[in-house]
């Protein structure tokens, strides 16, 4: 009797492992297609700037767009926190649509690729989501805020940031946006930041724009977070956006006392201006209800709305939620406005983009309208994240 019971339990356990393992395996290896748009002139690997990440999961694709007219250089980071998908989708839209008239643009859709292969442990997040397109739909990995523990494990009791030795939360040892400027002999996350820092130096990047989303209970939201070197640029872009794009975006100054963040360390350790964009994502709010794909894509949640009615939020929300098209459109328009202001002030270092949909166009047509069908792509223009 006992042996039969144990055999039955062992069988049930094996079934659970097979089903869950299959889901995790498939999610980690889901191939996300990128159809290089008309503006892509090269696709490089991040390890070209630092060999220390060659062969690792974070040896990401670097899409390079070069204009005929010389100018400045910009680095766009999507996927620093892959659980904030509007950032990745915005860079995806640029990768597949943007054309550069002047200057150069470097784009990473998966700045922390490892973090795209896992969801928050114990969070019951969906493993992926699909964006509807005119040709069907494109599936993306959901991702997490932190690198996958399969790639970097264990975490320390306390994370000591390099080089400041500031003590941060243990889990942030796997947070790309707490590991800047990185170090060559550090963890995978630190080495990834180091490689990006080397890219910024080698390519003489003028501006780095790191794309994020934030929960509505977080005070830094709907904002451009700017290093002091970029304060004027951010202020002017904020005014232009609020005046002409149809949405409001504020400015937050990068605090000097909080280390490891892109808007602080890139500005301190490289010649580039560092900016970080935050869009609202109710999916991340602690008071949310069911954490599913619908919430991720529609940003509709009655519990977050209730929190807003009680004055607990730093951004407004109603029954319309914060749809993914709105969040992506905020990012594309903010990028365009920042570059337009920059190019107006520094014509010789200007970066001029065309072919990128603005806020109203993304909302009107949906972000899927700007994703290209990989089945119709030339073999040479198809890449995978």
């Amino acid at each position: 009797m006992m042996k039969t019971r144990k055999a039955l339990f062992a069988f049930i356990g094996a079934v659970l492992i097979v089903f869950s393992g299959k889901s995790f395996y498939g999610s980690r290896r889901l191939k996300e297609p990128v159809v290089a748009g008309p503006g892509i002139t090269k696709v490089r690997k991040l390890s070209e700037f630092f060999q220390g990440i060659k062969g690792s999961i974070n040896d990401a694709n670097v899409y390079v767009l070069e204009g005929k007219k010389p100018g400045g250089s910009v680095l766009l980071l999507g996927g620093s926190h892959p659980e904030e998908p509007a950032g990745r989708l915005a860079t995806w839209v640029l990768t597949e649509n943007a054309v550069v008239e002047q200057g150069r643009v470097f784009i990473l859709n998966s700045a922390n690729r490892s973090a795209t292969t896992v969801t928050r442990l114990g969070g019951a997040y969906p493993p992926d989501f699909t964006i509807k397109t005119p040709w069907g739909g494109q599936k993306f990995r959901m991702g997490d805020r932190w690198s996958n523990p399969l790639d970097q494990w264990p975490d320390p009791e306390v994370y000591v940031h390099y080089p400041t030795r500031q003590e941060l939360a243990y889990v942030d040892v796997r947070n790309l946006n707490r590991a800047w400027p990185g170090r060559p002999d550090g963890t995978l996350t630190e080495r990834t930041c180091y490689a990006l820092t080397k890219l910024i130096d080698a390519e003489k990047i003028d501006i780095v724009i790191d794309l994020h989303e934030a929960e509505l209970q977080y005070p830094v939201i709907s904002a451009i977070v700017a290093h002091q070197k970029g304060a004027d640029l951010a202020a002017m872009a904020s005014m232009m956006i609020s005046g002409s794009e149809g949405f409001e975006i504020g400015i937050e100054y990068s605090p000097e006392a909080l280390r490891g963040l892109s808007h602080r360390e890139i500005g301190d350790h490289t010649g580039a201006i560092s900016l970080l964009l935050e869009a609202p994502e109710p999916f991340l709010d602690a008071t949310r209800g069911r954490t599913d794909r619908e919430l991720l894509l529609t940003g509709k949640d009655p519990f977050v709305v209730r929190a807003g009615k009680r004055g607990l939020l730093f951004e407004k929300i109603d029954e319309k939620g914060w749809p993914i098209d709105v969040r992506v459109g905020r990012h594309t328009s903010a990028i365009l406005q920042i570059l337009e202001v920059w190019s107006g002030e520094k014509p010789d270092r200007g970066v001029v983009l065309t072919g990128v949909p603005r806020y109203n166009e993304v909302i009107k047509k949906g972000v899927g309208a700007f994703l290209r069908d990989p089945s119709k792509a030339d073999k040479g223009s198809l890449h995978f994240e």
Partner: protein
Amino acid sequence: MSGLVTIVYYAMTAFAAVLLIWNFIRGKRWQDEVLYLIVLIPFLLRILRLK
């Protein structure tokens, strides 16, 4: 150094998994067996490098 620490942690995980399997086999109460099994799953998934 961090690579060595990772290997040690995988060895510790495997050791804990063996203990859990041993307790599962030796267990007398069905409630304990279910508990060992539930606890065992994440250990095995980590050893198999699935999550």
